[in-house]
């Protein structure tokens, strides 16, 4: 193994890149505790913006609504993604597998404005033709979010499923388990970390989306990102800084926790899989 020296060009570049990624957030967090309304001038420590944040009923409703949408979207996307991954992995010929993978991951490489616009036009046409959806709102956002989360989740879950030694599932069937039992008792526990990771990823993606939701939402169904976006357009406010700080805090805690859990699990399974194979 040829290792770069500690203070090599690439290592310096790496830590500068990390500084670039973290400094803006750090500043954001610091200024959320600023007493002044002017976000750029420090005038003293205060948590008053947090208090104001929790009193903002409209914002809190949007938070709750977004959490609900994210929960439902992530759950349905992950369930669909498990099915999709089974299909992708079962296909033996490389060419056909590629077609199916390309199809399922297409939403991954499509600008948000196009997904949003096209979904809205579909919903409008469907309302005209079959009367559903009667009104756009949480349901339509859920459908749209499930669609693009499905793509991300399938990538995560299928890459894990492909890695898995196929004979482990065959062994279960050989020992008398039905295909269903084999999947539930053997395959699913082994891909669980990937399923959880896919769920968390979908959850954060849904919680984050402003463009697609803006297109497909309807009256009275404002999500948190839409709310934030419309107030951010007006300029920087300390209240948004406070909200951003809370979001950063929650997301990093969840991400770190899930990373540690999946790392511990992964290491164990990876060791197992590797030694099974070698």
């Amino acid at each position, binding site marked *: 193994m040829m290792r770069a020296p500690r203070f090599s060009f690439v290592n310096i570049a790496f830590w500068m890149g990390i500084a670039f990624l973290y400094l803006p957030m750090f500043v954001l967090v610091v200024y959320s505790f600023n007493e002044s309304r002017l976000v750029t001038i420090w005038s003293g420590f205060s948590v008053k913006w947090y208090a104001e944040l929790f009193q903002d009923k409209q914002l809190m409703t949007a938070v709750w609504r977004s959490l609900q949408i994210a929960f439902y979207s992530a759950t349905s996307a992950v369930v669909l993604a498990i099915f999709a991954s089974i299909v992708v992995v079962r296909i033996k010929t490389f060419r056909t597998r*590629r077609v199916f993978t390309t199809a399922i991951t297409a939403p991954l490489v499509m600008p*948000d404005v196009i997904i949003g616009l096209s979904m809205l036009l579909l919903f409008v046409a469907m309302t005209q033709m079959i009367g559903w959806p009667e009104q756009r709102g949480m349901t339509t956002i859920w459908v749209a979010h499930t669609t693009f989360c499905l793509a991300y989740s399938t990538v995560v879950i299928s890459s894990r499923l492909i890695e898995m030694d196929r004979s482990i599932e065959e062994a279960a069937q050989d020992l008398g388990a039905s295909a269903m039992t084999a999947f539930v008792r053997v395959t699913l526990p082994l891909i669980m970390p990937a399923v959880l990771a896919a769920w968390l990823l979908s959850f954060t993606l849904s919680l984050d989306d402003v463009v697609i939701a803006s297109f497909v939402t309807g009256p009275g169904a404002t999500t948190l990102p839409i709310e934030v976006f419309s107030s951010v357009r007006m300029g920087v406010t300390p209240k948004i800084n406070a909200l951003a700080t809370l979001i950063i805090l929650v997301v*990093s805690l969840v991400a770190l926790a899930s990373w540690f859990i999946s790392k511990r699990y992964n290491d164990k399974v990876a060791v197992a899989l590797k030694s099974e194979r070698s």
Partner: protein
Amino acid sequence: MSLRPFLNRLAPSGRFWIISLPYLWLGLFFLLPFVFVLKISFSEAELAIPPYTPMFEWVDSVLNMRINLGNYQWLLEDPLYLQAYWNSIRMAFISTLLCLLIGYPMAYAIARAPKHLQPAWLLLVLLPSWTSFLIRVYAWMGLLSNNGIINNALMGLGLVDAPLTMINTNFAVYVGVVYSYLPFLVLPLYANLVKHDTTLLEAAADLGASRTKTFFTITLPLSINGMVAGAMLVFIPVVGEFVIPELLGGTETIMIGKVLWQEFFSNRDWPVASALAVIMVLILLVPIALFHHFQSKEVSR
């Protein structure tokens, strides 16, 4: 008792339906919508709900189909739109290059870091991308504004007399794009670099090549798949980006995502917005194909 064979016969087809559910979902909610975008791009705007003319109409018990090419003609005639497409592509290209310049050394550093540190370093790069995209862009609004932290610092140090205009310029958009999309490039690039056989580098060194020479003749050519896949992962969404030019860009920043948004929400001209989308998809077909080509090459390696 007679029900059981019947159910048994139904079971495999039941399984078939469950398995194909995600594909049905995608067909219905991802592919089908494009048909409607195409359809509406050929209609005319109208003050109605929905605000466009129908394509098919029964006139005297004859089915009439109306295809209106006016929207496309309109897009070609008004230089604003062509300018917007060109700007979007140019800015996406430049920011992809910037991402590569910054992201490659980072990915390389992670791939060459001691094995036990690699996951932590990778997490360090990816963690910001899990927090809200909107918040990351917002963070730069505070930094770049005229009385923002950077200008205050520069003036405090006496480096400049008057604040530099950074917010609402293309410069701010580049910063925002690179900042937001950098992790998307580092991840596939790292995945590629970490799989490299390090004995190749040792062999090159053994044969007398310097570190730099080895990098340009061995590592770089071998990482081309990961580079292109990662670059497309930045390029494609940036072409259609809306949030960043809206929040950080100014009047000079005319990008197609923003124009589409305005046509749709401000002018309520759905047919023109659809036509804009159709052309955008056509432009993106090449990079999308590139992405899938290099991505599958990468996977099959």
